[in-house]
């Protein structure tokens, strides 16, 4: 596996980080990744990340949940064991539908919410027993880390990052196989 060199610039303030990201992007450098201790509003736009598609998956999961609820209630209440509840014999799904609406609603929400969160974790490459990718434990406390790949422009990048207010700049060999 090919090992590549990356540069790690560390910041101590999210506002400084934001302006640094804008400067680096203005110089047309590609930012590999940014590690922050908390979500920084607007960072995704500044980095030029594509808009998330998680809402679409959520909608699809919701549709699955709704379908599961309909099929399940139809089997349980109409096909398998029809009962006469409150003078409303369960012989037709449509006629008994109002009684199933709360279940349809709950399963739609349940599927949409849970599967979306699971999708989000997987898409972020966070599964159980996963080794943390975080290159510097301080980014879980009060430091922000910007990672940029080096393509024979080490000195140029270093001076640019120093200008943007980085408190620490490290050049590390990154093993692509690590994750």
């Amino acid at each position: 596996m090919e090992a590549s060199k990356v540069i790690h610039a560390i910041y101590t303030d999210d506002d400084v980080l934001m302006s640094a990201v804008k400067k680096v992007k203005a110089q047309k450098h590609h930012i590999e990744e940014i590690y922050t201790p908390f979500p920084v509003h607007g960072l995704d736009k500044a980095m030029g990340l594509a808009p998330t598609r998680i809402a679409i998956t959520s909608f699809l999961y919701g549709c699955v949940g709704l379908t599961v609820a309909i099929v399940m209630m139809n089997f349980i209440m109409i096909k398998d064991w029809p009962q006469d509840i409150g003078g409303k014999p369960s012989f037709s799904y449509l006629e008994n539908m109002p009684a199933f609406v709360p279940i349809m609603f709950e399963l739609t929400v349940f599927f949409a919410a849970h599967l979306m969160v699971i999708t989000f974790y997987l898409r972020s490459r966070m599964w159980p027993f996963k080794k943390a990718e975080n290159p510097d434990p301080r980014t879980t406390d009060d430091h922000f880390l910007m990672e940029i790949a080096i393509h024979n422009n080490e000195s140029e990048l270093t001076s640019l990052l120093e200008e943007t207010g980085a408190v620490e700049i490290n050049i590390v060999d990154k093993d692509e196989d690590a994750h």
Partner: protein
Amino acid sequence: MEYKISNRLRMGAIIMMVLGLMGVGYGFIDSHGYTEENITEKLAAEHHGHGDAHATESHANEHSDSAHGEVASHDEEAHGGLTQHEEHALHQIHNRPWSALYVGAFFFFMIALGVLAFYAIQYAAQAGWSPVLFRVMEGITAYMLPGAIIVLLIAVASGTIGHYNIFVWMDPDVVAHDKLIQGKSGYLNITWFTIRGIIFISGWALYRHFSRKFSIAQDSADDNRNFKKNFRISAAFLVFYIYTESMMSWDWVMSVDPHWFSTLFGWYVFASMFVSGITVIAMITIYLKSKGLLEFVNDSHIHDLAKFMFGISIFWTYLWFSQFMLIWYSNIPEEVTYFVTRIEHYKLPFFGMLAMNFIFPLLLLMNSDYKRINWFVIMTGIVILCGHYLDVFNWIMPATVVDRWFIGMPEIGAILLFGGLFLFIVFTALGKAPLLAKGNPFIKESEHFHY
């Protein structure tokens, strides 16, 4: 920044009112064409009118037979009066123009009151995103006072000038034969009804008057005293509002079916007025933006209004369904009759309204990007407003005209009449103050609001 109602809009509003008055007038004159003397023939003609559609050759004989039969029976009854069916039909025909007028008046009044509640919430919550929209909201709430007075006047007039055309409990003859209404007559009587109405309206109008006054005064003030006053009266108003709005919904809407009651009716009416009001805020904001005004309102404000339209539409559905399901499931005759009438005679408006108020906004406004496309918000807004007009229609009409409903001249006339008045008053009020509430302490935050 300043806005003046354009001549075209003013003329349009006046033409709407004139056309509306003609429609309403036609409704009353037409219904007065039905009298005790001719109701029998008219009903018979109506019956044959339907029959003609399926006419066959044998129809001619049938026609003459039944005509003879009816003439004979009419002669017999000449002294005894009308049959019960004829009497009911006559009353329903006379109720229709009153109810149509009332539905139209209530719909536009409810928009203004919904906006007033939304406005008060913005102040009480010290919201930072919305102050750029305050002048639009203040313009809409200008219609609250005249709108509410019109609704109350129609309600009272129907029981004094009219022949108890909207509220049966106003009719002493009905009450005399009705144990249930007798039990409620301590609350449901015209005097007490009027006094309550005046208390509700004066409370709302006082808040609207002072909040507008402080809001204007804040524009040129160099401290935040007026804003703080507005914060306090808004919180107080919201307490007053949630009680009076609920009671208003019992008085002005639920009491058309005096035997029937629902404990969450106040909330349900509130959801309707809230979503209609927010929709109108969004529509008028987009209209003013298209005129090159309100340049400080950005996409994110429209996005937030559309989120409210989406959210409150679902909230409305939640309340509508909560009310429906419990009554449908328990199936208690005195309760379920309310929905039986609606599902039997109002299938199209009843289920149509559900599609327009729930499925349309749910699907159209679900996507985040669509919430900032102006024409999309306008189109959805039109569907929501039509849906909530039907909602009001379904509250009133089944109680007063039962199966003799139609959306024809009297209904459209009332919409044009009060719609014209609404546009006239709202846009005149919008021209009376700068469109930016520049003294509001949150105005900078609101201008820079960005989602």
